[in-house]
Protein backbone atom coordinates (compact mmCIF):
# COMPACT_ATOMS: atom_id res chain seq x y z
CA UNK A 1 0.00 0.00 0.00
CA UNK A 2 1.19 3.48 -0.91
CA UNK A 3 -0.09 6.04 1.53
CA UNK A 4 0.34 9.79 2.00
CA UNK A 5 -0.68 11.39 5.31
CA UNK A 6 -0.95 15.05 6.38
CA UNK A 7 0.95 15.88 3.21
CA UNK A 8 2.21 19.33 2.21
CA UNK A 9 3.94 19.49 -1.15
CA UNK A 10 5.90 22.11 -3.05
CA UNK A 11 9.47 23.21 -3.72
CA UNK A 12 9.94 25.77 -0.96
CA UNK A 13 6.41 26.71 0.05
CA UNK A 14 3.35 24.53 0.16
CA UNK A 15 1.30 24.65 -3.07
CA UNK A 16 -1.07 21.81 -2.19
CA UNK A 17 -1.88 19.51 0.69
CA UNK A 18 -3.74 16.29 1.41
CA UNK A 19 -5.10 14.65 4.56
CA UNK A 20 -4.93 11.07 3.37
CA UNK A 21 -4.33 9.47 -0.02
CA UNK A 22 -4.13 5.72 -0.50
CA UNK A 23 -3.18 3.73 -3.58
CA UNK A 24 -3.40 -0.06 -3.51
CA UNK A 25 -2.12 -2.57 -6.05
CA UNK A 26 -5.05 -3.18 -8.40
CA UNK A 27 -6.27 0.45 -8.26
CA UNK A 28 -6.39 2.69 -11.30
CA UNK A 29 -6.69 6.29 -10.13
CA UNK A 30 -6.88 9.46 -12.20
CA UNK A 31 -5.18 12.58 -10.88
CA UNK A 32 -7.14 15.55 -12.18
CA UNK A 33 -6.60 19.27 -11.78
CA UNK A 34 -6.01 22.42 -13.76
CA UNK A 35 -2.61 23.37 -15.15
CA UNK A 36 -0.25 24.47 -12.40
CA UNK A 37 -2.46 23.06 -9.64
CA UNK A 38 0.30 20.76 -8.41
CA UNK A 39 -0.38 17.45 -10.17
CA UNK A 40 3.19 17.02 -11.31
CA UNK A 41 4.50 18.15 -7.93
CA UNK A 42 2.33 15.52 -6.25
CA UNK A 43 3.57 12.80 -8.61
CA UNK A 44 7.14 13.87 -7.98
CA UNK A 45 6.62 13.81 -4.23
CA UNK A 46 4.90 10.44 -4.24
CA UNK A 47 7.75 8.82 -6.15
CA UNK A 48 10.35 10.27 -3.83
CA UNK A 49 11.94 12.60 -6.35
CA UNK A 50 10.92 15.68 -4.34
CA UNK A 51 11.02 15.71 -0.53
CA UNK A 52 7.77 16.34 1.35
CA UNK A 53 7.47 19.75 3.03
CA UNK A 54 5.67 18.05 5.90
CA UNK A 55 3.75 14.86 6.47
CA UNK A 56 4.73 11.45 5.17
CA UNK A 57 4.60 9.16 2.15
CA UNK A 58 4.94 5.47 2.93
CA UNK A 59 5.12 2.29 0.89
CA UNK A 60 4.18 -0.77 2.90
CA UNK A 61 4.50 1.30 6.05
CA UNK A 62 8.05 2.47 5.37
CA UNK A 63 8.66 6.14 4.58
CA UNK A 64 10.02 6.92 1.11
CA UNK A 65 13.14 8.62 2.47
CA UNK A 66 14.15 5.33 4.08
CA UNK A 67 14.10 3.45 0.77
CA UNK A 68 17.36 3.30 -1.17
CA UNK A 69 17.04 4.62 -4.74
CA UNK A 70 17.52 1.12 -6.09
CA UNK A 71 14.91 -0.56 -3.88
CA UNK A 72 12.45 2.29 -4.50
CA UNK A 73 12.91 1.60 -8.20
CA UNK A 74 11.56 -1.90 -7.61
CA UNK A 75 8.36 -0.37 -6.15
CA UNK A 76 7.44 2.55 -8.43
CA UNK A 77 7.84 2.78 -12.19
CA UNK A 78 7.53 6.20 -13.78
CA UNK A 79 6.57 7.35 -17.27
CA UNK A 80 6.98 11.04 -18.08
CA UNK A 81 4.73 12.94 -20.43
CA UNK A 82 6.75 12.66 -23.58
CA UNK A 83 9.45 10.23 -24.51
CA UNK A 84 10.89 11.51 -27.77
CA UNK A 85 12.86 8.35 -28.48
CA UNK A 86 16.63 7.98 -28.48
CA UNK A 87 18.68 7.54 -31.63
CA UNK A 88 20.23 4.09 -32.07
CA UNK A 89 18.15 2.70 -29.20
CA UNK A 90 16.07 -0.30 -30.20
CA UNK A 91 12.70 -0.99 -28.60
CA UNK A 92 13.77 -4.23 -26.92
CA UNK A 93 16.86 -2.55 -25.43
CA UNK A 94 14.65 0.30 -24.26
CA UNK A 95 12.23 -2.07 -22.53
CA UNK A 96 15.23 -3.91 -21.05
CA UNK A 97 16.28 -0.66 -19.35
CA UNK A 98 13.24 -1.28 -17.13
CA UNK A 99 15.30 -4.11 -15.62
CA UNK A 100 18.01 -1.65 -14.49
CA UNK A 101 17.25 -1.89 -10.74
CA UNK A 102 17.74 -5.65 -10.86
CA UNK A 103 21.00 -5.68 -12.84
CA UNK A 104 24.52 -5.89 -11.45
CA UNK A 105 26.77 -2.87 -11.67
CA UNK A 106 28.17 -3.99 -15.05
CA UNK A 107 24.65 -3.75 -16.43
CA UNK A 108 24.54 -7.09 -18.22
CA UNK A 109 21.04 -8.43 -18.75
CA UNK A 110 20.47 -12.14 -18.23
CA UNK A 111 18.27 -14.34 -20.38
CA UNK A 112 15.51 -14.05 -17.75
CA UNK A 113 15.59 -10.24 -18.09
CA UNK A 114 15.30 -10.46 -21.88
CA UNK A 115 12.35 -12.83 -21.52
CA UNK A 116 10.64 -10.48 -19.07
CA UNK A 117 11.14 -7.58 -21.48
CA UNK A 118 9.71 -9.61 -24.35
CA UNK A 119 6.78 -10.66 -22.22
CA UNK A 120 6.12 -7.02 -21.29
CA UNK A 121 6.10 -6.03 -24.97
CA UNK A 122 3.64 -8.81 -25.71
CA UNK A 123 1.45 -7.74 -22.79
CA UNK A 124 0.95 -4.26 -24.28
CA UNK A 125 0.54 -5.70 -27.78
CA UNK A 126 3.74 -4.19 -29.15
CA UNK A 127 5.87 -7.26 -29.81
CA UNK A 128 6.01 -6.37 -33.50
CA UNK A 129 7.96 -3.21 -32.57
CA UNK A 130 10.74 -5.20 -30.88
CA UNK A 131 13.54 -4.46 -33.33
CA UNK A 132 12.45 -0.95 -34.33
CA UNK A 133 14.37 2.13 -33.31
CA UNK A 134 12.68 4.15 -30.55
CA UNK A 135 13.32 7.32 -32.57
CA UNK A 136 11.17 5.99 -35.42
CA UNK A 137 8.02 5.21 -33.39
CA UNK A 138 4.73 7.09 -33.55
CA UNK A 139 3.42 8.82 -30.42
CA UNK A 140 0.96 5.99 -29.76
CA UNK A 141 3.66 3.34 -30.16
CA UNK A 142 5.95 5.26 -27.80
CA UNK A 143 3.37 5.19 -25.03
CA UNK A 144 2.93 1.45 -25.50
CA UNK A 145 6.63 0.62 -25.37
CA UNK A 146 6.99 3.04 -22.44
CA UNK A 147 4.33 1.07 -20.64
CA UNK A 148 6.19 -2.11 -21.52
CA UNK A 149 9.33 -0.65 -19.93
CA UNK A 150 7.32 0.12 -16.79
CA UNK A 151 5.97 -3.45 -16.77
CA UNK A 152 9.47 -4.87 -17.20
CA UNK A 153 10.46 -2.88 -14.13
CA UNK A 154 8.11 -5.25 -12.27
CA UNK A 155 6.85 -2.76 -9.69
CA UNK A 156 3.56 -2.84 -7.74
CA UNK A 157 2.98 0.84 -8.66
CA UNK A 158 3.14 2.73 -11.95
CA UNK A 159 2.85 6.52 -12.24
CA UNK A 160 2.12 8.17 -15.57
CA UNK A 161 2.28 11.92 -16.19
CA UNK A 162 -0.34 12.90 -18.78
CA UNK A 163 0.13 9.75 -20.88
CA UNK A 164 -2.59 10.74 -23.33
CA UNK A 165 -1.34 14.28 -24.01
CA UNK A 166 0.01 13.51 -27.49
CA UNK A 167 -2.48 10.82 -28.54
CA UNK A 168 -5.51 10.91 -30.80
CA UNK A 169 -8.90 9.77 -29.56
CA UNK A 170 -8.50 6.17 -30.65
CA UNK A 171 -5.12 5.72 -28.96
CA UNK A 172 -6.34 7.47 -25.79
CA UNK A 173 -9.18 5.03 -25.42
CA UNK A 174 -6.90 2.11 -26.23
CA UNK A 175 -4.40 3.22 -23.57
CA UNK A 176 -7.11 3.63 -20.90
CA UNK A 177 -8.48 0.17 -21.71
CA UNK A 178 -5.00 -1.32 -21.42
CA UNK A 179 -4.29 0.45 -18.13
CA UNK A 180 -7.55 -0.79 -16.65
CA UNK A 181 -6.71 -4.32 -17.77
CA UNK A 182 -3.22 -4.14 -16.28
CA UNK A 183 -4.51 -2.81 -12.98
CA UNK A 184 -6.89 -5.74 -12.63
CA UNK A 185 -5.00 -8.64 -14.16
CA UNK A 186 -1.45 -7.73 -13.07
CA UNK A 187 -2.50 -6.12 -9.78
CA UNK A 188 -0.73 -2.86 -10.54
CA UNK A 189 -1.55 0.28 -8.58
CA UNK A 190 -1.66 2.85 -11.38
CA UNK A 191 -1.84 6.59 -10.87
CA UNK A 192 -2.12 8.79 -13.93
CA UNK A 193 -2.47 12.52 -14.26
CA UNK A 194 -4.75 13.57 -17.09
CA UNK A 195 -6.96 16.30 -18.57
CA UNK A 196 -9.15 13.74 -20.32
CA UNK A 197 -12.31 14.28 -18.23
CA UNK A 198 -14.54 12.38 -20.65
CA UNK A 199 -12.43 9.26 -20.54
CA UNK A 200 -12.07 9.50 -16.76
CA UNK A 201 -15.86 9.57 -16.48
CA UNK A 202 -16.43 7.00 -19.21
CA UNK A 203 -14.07 4.50 -17.57
CA UNK A 204 -15.55 5.29 -14.13
CA UNK A 205 -12.14 5.89 -12.61
CA UNK A 206 -11.77 6.88 -8.98
CA UNK A 207 -10.23 10.33 -8.73
CA UNK A 208 -7.73 12.37 -6.84
CA UNK A 209 -8.83 15.96 -7.39
CA UNK A 210 -6.50 18.92 -7.11
CA UNK A 211 -8.88 21.89 -6.91
CA UNK A 212 -7.84 25.54 -6.84
CA UNK A 213 -7.91 25.67 -3.03
CA UNK A 214 -4.98 23.25 -3.10
CA UNK A 215 -6.54 20.60 -0.88
CA UNK A 216 -6.24 17.28 -2.69
CA UNK A 217 -9.08 14.86 -2.03
CA UNK A 218 -9.88 11.34 -3.14
CA UNK A 219 -13.29 10.92 -4.86
CA UNK A 220 -15.43 8.02 -5.99
CA UNK A 221 -15.96 7.78 -9.77
CA UNK A 222 -18.10 10.73 -10.99
CA UNK A 223 -21.19 10.50 -13.16
CA UNK A 224 -21.27 13.78 -15.05
CA UNK A 225 -18.68 16.05 -16.54
CA UNK A 226 -20.38 19.18 -15.17
CA UNK A 227 -20.14 17.95 -11.59
CA UNK A 228 -16.45 17.15 -12.07
CA UNK A 229 -15.71 20.51 -13.69
CA UNK A 230 -17.53 22.28 -10.90
CA UNK A 231 -15.22 20.67 -8.35
CA UNK A 232 -12.13 21.87 -10.21
CA UNK A 233 -13.06 25.55 -10.44
Amino acid sequence: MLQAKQLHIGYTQSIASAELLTLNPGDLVALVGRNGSGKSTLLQTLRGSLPVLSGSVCIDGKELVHWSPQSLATKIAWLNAHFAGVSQLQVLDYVLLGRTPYLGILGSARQADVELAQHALKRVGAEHLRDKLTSSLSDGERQLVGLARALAQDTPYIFLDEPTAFLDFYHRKQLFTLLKELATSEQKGILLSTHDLDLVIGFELPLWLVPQDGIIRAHEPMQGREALEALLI
Partner: protein
Amino acid sequence: MNQTKSHLILLLSAGILLLVVFLLYLKTGYFNTTWEHIFQALTNPRDEVSSTVVWSFRLPRILMAFLAGAALSVAGMLMQNLFQNTLAGPDVLGITSGSSLLVALWMMTGITALGSTTDLIFLGIIGAMGMGAIMLLFALKLRSAVHLLLIGLMLSSFIGAIIAIIQASSATQELQQYIFWNFGSLQRVTIQQIPWIAIITSLGVILSLFQVRALNAMVLGEDIAKSLGVSIRQLRIMSILIAGILTGTITAFAGPIAFVGLAIPNVTKLLMKTQNHRVLLISNILFGALFLGVCDFSIKLLESYVAIPLNALTALLGVPFVSWMILKNRHVTG
Protein backbone atom coordinates in the same frame (compact mmCIF):
# COMPACT_ATOMS: atom_id res chain seq x y z
CA MET B 1 21.67 -12.69 -32.05
CA ASN B 2 22.15 -10.76 -35.24
CA GLN B 3 23.41 -7.56 -33.70
CA THR B 4 25.95 -9.31 -31.52
CA LYS B 5 27.38 -10.94 -34.62
CA SER B 6 27.77 -7.67 -36.52
CA HIS B 7 29.33 -6.12 -33.42
CA LEU B 8 31.88 -8.91 -33.24
CA ILE B 9 32.72 -8.57 -36.93
CA LEU B 10 33.22 -4.82 -36.62
CA LEU B 11 35.35 -5.11 -33.50
CA LEU B 12 37.41 -7.93 -34.97
CA SER B 13 38.05 -5.89 -38.13
CA ALA B 14 39.11 -2.92 -36.02
CA GLY B 15 41.45 -5.20 -34.07
CA ILE B 16 43.04 -6.56 -37.23
CA LEU B 17 43.42 -3.07 -38.70
CA LEU B 18 45.06 -1.95 -35.45
CA LEU B 19 47.61 -4.70 -35.80
CA VAL B 20 48.24 -3.80 -39.45
CA VAL B 21 48.71 -0.11 -38.64
CA PHE B 22 50.97 -1.06 -35.75
CA LEU B 23 53.26 -3.19 -37.92
CA LEU B 24 53.32 -0.79 -40.88
CA TYR B 25 54.10 2.04 -38.49
CA LEU B 26 57.08 0.19 -37.03
CA LYS B 27 58.40 -0.49 -40.52
CA THR B 28 58.02 3.01 -41.93
CA GLY B 29 60.53 5.80 -41.48
CA TYR B 30 63.81 7.38 -42.66
CA PHE B 31 65.81 4.47 -41.41
CA ASN B 32 65.23 1.38 -43.52
CA THR B 33 64.11 -1.58 -41.48
CA THR B 34 63.19 -5.04 -42.73
CA TRP B 35 60.42 -7.14 -41.20
CA GLU B 36 63.16 -9.30 -39.79
CA HIS B 37 64.68 -6.29 -38.00
CA ILE B 38 61.34 -5.39 -36.50
CA PHE B 39 60.55 -8.91 -35.39
CA GLN B 40 63.92 -9.16 -33.77
CA ALA B 41 63.67 -5.73 -32.15
CA LEU B 42 60.32 -6.63 -30.64
CA THR B 43 61.14 -10.13 -29.43
CA ASN B 44 64.84 -9.90 -28.68
CA PRO B 45 66.12 -6.32 -28.75
CA ARG B 46 69.86 -6.05 -29.31
CA ASP B 47 72.29 -3.22 -29.30
CA GLU B 48 71.65 -2.41 -32.94
CA VAL B 49 70.46 0.69 -34.75
CA SER B 50 67.24 -1.02 -35.85
CA SER B 51 66.37 -1.96 -32.25
CA THR B 52 67.05 1.59 -31.09
CA VAL B 53 64.93 3.08 -33.87
CA VAL B 54 62.02 0.80 -32.99
CA TRP B 55 62.22 1.14 -29.21
CA SER B 56 63.14 4.81 -28.91
CA PHE B 57 61.18 6.35 -31.75
CA ARG B 58 58.57 4.23 -33.44
CA LEU B 59 57.16 2.03 -30.67
CA PRO B 60 56.49 4.76 -28.08
CA ARG B 61 54.92 7.02 -30.72
CA ILE B 62 52.45 4.46 -32.12
CA LEU B 63 51.59 3.14 -28.67
CA MET B 64 50.95 6.70 -27.52
CA ALA B 65 48.73 7.25 -30.57
CA PHE B 66 46.68 4.18 -29.66
CA LEU B 67 46.46 5.13 -25.98
CA ALA B 68 45.55 8.75 -26.70
CA GLY B 69 42.88 7.79 -29.25
CA ALA B 70 41.33 5.26 -26.89
CA ALA B 71 41.45 7.49 -23.81
CA LEU B 72 40.05 10.59 -25.51
CA SER B 73 37.23 8.63 -27.14
CA VAL B 74 36.18 7.05 -23.84
CA ALA B 75 36.33 10.50 -22.19
CA GLY B 76 34.17 11.87 -25.02
CA MET B 77 31.65 9.05 -24.60
CA LEU B 78 31.34 9.83 -20.88
CA MET B 79 30.98 13.58 -21.52
CA GLN B 80 28.28 13.05 -24.15
CA ASN B 81 26.37 10.84 -21.76
CA LEU B 82 26.78 13.20 -18.80
CA PHE B 83 25.74 16.33 -20.68
CA GLN B 84 23.09 14.47 -22.69
CA ASN B 85 24.56 16.05 -25.76
CA THR B 86 26.16 14.43 -28.79
CA LEU B 87 28.24 17.56 -29.40
CA ALA B 88 29.97 17.31 -26.03
CA GLY B 89 33.60 16.28 -25.84
CA PRO B 90 36.63 17.04 -23.72
CA ASP B 91 37.86 19.79 -26.04
CA VAL B 92 34.62 21.62 -26.85
CA LEU B 93 33.62 21.68 -23.19
CA GLY B 94 36.88 23.37 -22.27
CA ILE B 95 38.19 20.40 -20.30
CA THR B 96 41.29 20.14 -22.45
CA SER B 97 41.96 23.84 -22.01
CA GLY B 98 41.93 23.32 -18.24
CA SER B 99 44.88 20.98 -18.70
CA SER B 100 46.51 23.42 -21.12
CA LEU B 101 46.42 26.24 -18.59
CA LEU B 102 48.22 24.32 -15.88
CA VAL B 103 50.69 22.79 -18.32
CA ALA B 104 51.40 26.26 -19.75
CA LEU B 105 52.02 27.62 -16.25
CA TRP B 106 54.30 24.74 -15.50
CA MET B 107 56.26 24.91 -18.76
CA MET B 108 56.68 28.64 -19.00
CA THR B 109 56.95 29.87 -15.44
CA GLY B 110 59.20 27.09 -14.20
CA ILE B 111 57.15 26.35 -11.09
CA THR B 112 57.75 22.73 -10.11
CA ALA B 113 56.59 20.85 -7.08
CA LEU B 114 57.18 17.14 -7.64
CA GLY B 115 59.28 15.32 -10.20
CA SER B 116 58.77 16.60 -13.73
CA THR B 117 56.74 13.66 -15.12
CA THR B 118 54.58 13.37 -12.01
CA ASP B 119 54.03 17.12 -12.07
CA LEU B 120 52.89 17.01 -15.65
CA ILE B 121 50.39 14.19 -15.07
CA PHE B 122 48.97 15.75 -11.91
CA LEU B 123 48.64 19.19 -13.43
CA GLY B 124 47.00 17.79 -16.54
CA ILE B 125 44.47 15.82 -14.51
CA ILE B 126 43.72 18.59 -12.00
CA GLY B 127 43.24 21.14 -14.79
CA ALA B 128 40.90 18.81 -16.68
CA MET B 129 38.86 17.86 -13.63
CA GLY B 130 38.61 21.46 -12.46
CA MET B 131 37.19 22.55 -15.79
CA GLY B 132 34.94 19.50 -15.83
CA ALA B 133 33.49 20.52 -12.47
CA ILE B 134 32.99 24.13 -13.61
CA MET B 135 31.20 22.96 -16.76
CA LEU B 136 29.02 20.66 -14.67
CA LEU B 137 27.91 23.61 -12.54
CA PHE B 138 26.92 25.43 -15.71
CA ALA B 139 25.18 22.30 -17.00
CA LEU B 140 23.01 22.19 -13.89
CA LYS B 141 21.78 25.72 -14.63
CA LEU B 142 21.65 25.60 -18.43
CA ARG B 143 19.27 23.19 -20.09
CA SER B 144 20.10 24.27 -23.62
CA ALA B 145 22.90 22.34 -25.28
CA VAL B 146 23.84 25.34 -27.41
CA HIS B 147 24.24 27.59 -24.38
CA LEU B 148 26.44 25.03 -22.72
CA LEU B 149 28.69 24.70 -25.75
CA LEU B 150 28.94 28.48 -26.00
CA ILE B 151 30.04 28.64 -22.36
CA GLY B 152 32.61 25.94 -23.05
CA LEU B 153 33.88 27.88 -26.04
CA MET B 154 34.07 31.12 -24.09
CA LEU B 155 35.84 29.55 -21.14
CA SER B 156 38.33 28.11 -23.62
CA SER B 157 39.01 31.57 -25.06
CA PHE B 158 39.24 32.98 -21.55
CA ILE B 159 41.88 30.42 -20.70
CA GLY B 160 43.50 31.05 -24.09
CA ALA B 161 43.81 34.71 -23.11
CA ILE B 162 45.52 33.85 -19.84
CA ILE B 163 47.87 31.50 -21.68
CA ALA B 164 48.65 34.30 -24.19
CA ILE B 165 49.71 36.54 -21.31
CA ILE B 166 51.96 33.81 -19.95
CA GLN B 167 53.38 33.28 -23.45
CA ALA B 168 54.04 36.96 -24.01
CA SER B 169 56.08 37.21 -20.86
CA SER B 170 58.11 34.02 -21.16
CA ALA B 171 61.52 33.25 -22.61
CA THR B 172 61.94 32.07 -26.21
CA GLN B 173 63.01 28.57 -25.35
CA GLU B 174 60.12 27.88 -23.01
CA LEU B 175 57.73 29.48 -25.45
CA GLN B 176 58.93 27.19 -28.20
CA GLN B 177 58.53 24.15 -25.96
CA TYR B 178 54.95 25.17 -25.21
CA ILE B 179 54.11 25.85 -28.86
CA PHE B 180 55.31 22.40 -29.89
CA TRP B 181 53.34 20.84 -27.05
CA ASN B 182 50.30 22.79 -28.19
CA PHE B 183 50.62 21.39 -31.74
CA GLY B 184 49.80 18.03 -30.27
CA SER B 185 52.60 15.63 -30.74
CA LEU B 186 53.26 12.06 -29.77
CA GLN B 187 57.02 12.20 -30.27
CA ARG B 188 58.06 13.43 -26.89
CA VAL B 189 56.73 10.42 -25.02
CA THR B 190 59.43 7.96 -24.05
CA ILE B 191 59.04 4.20 -23.89
CA GLN B 192 59.55 4.42 -20.11
CA GLN B 193 56.50 6.66 -19.77
CA ILE B 194 54.24 4.42 -21.84
CA PRO B 195 53.48 1.88 -19.06
CA TRP B 196 52.35 4.70 -16.74
CA ILE B 197 50.05 6.17 -19.35
CA ALA B 198 48.76 2.67 -20.14
CA ILE B 199 48.04 1.98 -16.47
CA ILE B 200 46.17 5.27 -16.00
CA THR B 201 44.17 4.73 -19.21
CA SER B 202 43.28 1.17 -18.13
CA LEU B 203 42.20 2.50 -14.74
CA GLY B 204 39.86 4.94 -16.48
CA VAL B 205 38.45 2.15 -18.65
CA ILE B 206 37.90 -0.18 -15.69
CA LEU B 207 36.19 2.57 -13.69
CA SER B 208 33.98 3.26 -16.73
CA LEU B 209 33.02 -0.40 -16.89
CA PHE B 210 31.54 -0.07 -13.40
CA GLN B 211 29.35 2.80 -14.62
CA VAL B 212 27.80 0.88 -17.52
CA ARG B 213 24.46 0.22 -15.82
CA ALA B 214 24.08 3.89 -14.92
CA LEU B 215 25.35 5.10 -18.32
CA ASN B 216 22.77 2.95 -20.10
CA ALA B 217 19.88 4.26 -17.99
CA MET B 218 21.11 7.86 -18.36
CA VAL B 219 20.33 7.66 -22.07
CA LEU B 220 16.66 8.13 -21.09
CA GLY B 221 17.44 11.38 -19.26
CA GLU B 222 18.19 12.13 -15.62
CA ASP B 223 14.60 11.95 -14.43
CA ILE B 224 13.93 8.46 -15.78
CA ALA B 225 17.41 7.22 -14.87
CA LYS B 226 16.71 8.29 -11.29
CA SER B 227 13.39 6.44 -11.29
CA LEU B 228 15.31 3.34 -12.41
CA GLY B 229 17.37 3.53 -9.22
CA VAL B 230 20.48 5.21 -10.65
CA SER B 231 22.35 7.63 -8.41
CA ILE B 232 22.82 10.63 -10.70
CA ARG B 233 25.16 12.33 -8.25
CA GLN B 234 27.49 9.38 -8.19
CA LEU B 235 27.42 9.02 -11.97
CA ARG B 236 28.23 12.72 -12.42
CA ILE B 237 31.17 12.61 -10.04
CA MET B 238 32.54 9.44 -11.59
CA SER B 239 32.16 10.68 -15.17
CA ILE B 240 33.97 13.95 -14.41
CA LEU B 241 36.64 12.07 -12.48
CA ILE B 242 37.26 9.47 -15.20
CA ALA B 243 37.09 11.93 -18.11
CA GLY B 244 39.42 14.24 -16.18
CA ILE B 245 41.95 11.49 -15.52
CA LEU B 246 41.91 10.30 -19.14
CA THR B 247 41.92 13.70 -20.84
CA GLY B 248 44.36 15.21 -18.34
CA THR B 249 46.94 12.45 -18.70
CA ILE B 250 46.83 12.38 -22.48
CA THR B 251 46.84 16.18 -22.80
CA ALA B 252 49.79 16.49 -20.44
CA PHE B 253 51.92 14.22 -22.61
CA ALA B 254 50.62 14.74 -26.13
CA GLY B 255 49.17 18.24 -26.00
CA PRO B 256 45.59 19.19 -26.71
CA ILE B 257 44.26 16.86 -29.41
CA ALA B 258 41.06 18.26 -30.84
CA PHE B 259 37.89 16.56 -32.07
CA VAL B 260 38.83 12.92 -31.39
CA GLY B 261 36.76 12.91 -28.20
CA LEU B 262 33.83 14.50 -29.99
CA ALA B 263 33.84 12.67 -33.31
CA ILE B 264 34.82 9.09 -32.43
CA PRO B 265 32.00 8.41 -29.91
CA ASN B 266 29.53 9.55 -32.57
CA VAL B 267 31.12 7.44 -35.30
CA THR B 268 31.09 4.52 -32.89
CA LYS B 269 27.40 4.95 -32.12
CA LEU B 270 26.59 5.14 -35.84
CA LEU B 271 28.62 2.04 -36.63
CA MET B 272 27.52 -0.10 -33.70
CA LYS B 273 23.89 1.06 -33.77
CA THR B 274 23.43 0.59 -30.06
CA GLN B 275 23.16 2.52 -26.81
CA ASN B 276 24.59 -0.30 -24.75
CA HIS B 277 27.60 1.34 -23.14
CA ARG B 278 29.43 -1.92 -22.56
CA VAL B 279 29.60 -2.35 -26.32
CA LEU B 280 30.21 1.36 -26.88
CA LEU B 281 33.06 1.43 -24.37
CA ILE B 282 34.97 -1.40 -26.03
CA SER B 283 34.23 0.01 -29.49
CA ASN B 284 35.37 3.51 -28.57
CA ILE B 285 38.67 2.10 -27.33
CA LEU B 286 39.32 0.23 -30.57
CA PHE B 287 37.99 2.83 -33.01
CA GLY B 288 39.66 5.71 -31.13
CA ALA B 289 43.00 3.91 -31.11
CA LEU B 290 42.66 3.02 -34.77
CA PHE B 291 41.69 6.56 -35.79
CA LEU B 292 44.60 8.28 -34.06
CA GLY B 293 46.96 5.52 -35.18
CA VAL B 294 45.96 6.10 -38.82
CA CYS B 295 46.20 9.89 -38.33
CA ASP B 296 49.71 9.69 -36.98
CA PHE B 297 50.71 7.17 -39.63
CA SER B 298 49.52 9.58 -42.33
CA ILE B 299 51.49 12.39 -40.71
CA LYS B 300 54.55 10.17 -40.80
CA LEU B 301 54.05 9.25 -44.46
CA LEU B 302 53.71 12.92 -45.43
CA GLU B 303 56.57 14.04 -43.18
CA SER B 304 59.04 14.45 -46.02
CA TYR B 305 56.64 16.72 -47.95
CA VAL B 306 54.89 18.71 -45.27
CA ALA B 307 54.96 18.81 -41.48
CA ILE B 308 51.41 18.45 -40.18
CA PRO B 309 50.87 18.91 -36.46
CA LEU B 310 48.60 16.17 -35.05
CA ASN B 311 46.20 18.71 -33.63
CA ALA B 312 45.86 20.29 -37.08
CA LEU B 313 45.13 16.98 -38.78
CA THR B 314 42.46 15.89 -36.28
CA ALA B 315 40.80 19.29 -36.71
CA LEU B 316 40.99 19.09 -40.53
CA LEU B 317 39.24 15.73 -40.40
CA GLY B 318 37.02 16.44 -37.41
CA VAL B 319 35.47 19.76 -38.42
CA PRO B 320 33.90 18.53 -41.69
CA PHE B 321 32.57 15.43 -39.96
CA VAL B 322 31.04 17.29 -37.03
CA SER B 323 29.57 19.92 -39.38
CA TRP B 324 27.97 17.14 -41.40
CA MET B 325 26.63 15.61 -38.21
CA ILE B 326 25.04 18.88 -37.13
CA LEU B 327 23.50 19.40 -40.59
CA LYS B 328 22.12 15.88 -40.58
CA ASN B 329 20.59 16.24 -37.13
CA ARG B 330 19.41 19.83 -37.41
CA HIS B 331 15.77 18.83 -36.96
CA VAL B 332 16.59 16.88 -33.80
CA THR B 333 16.60 18.92 -30.62
CA GLY B 334 18.93 18.38 -27.70
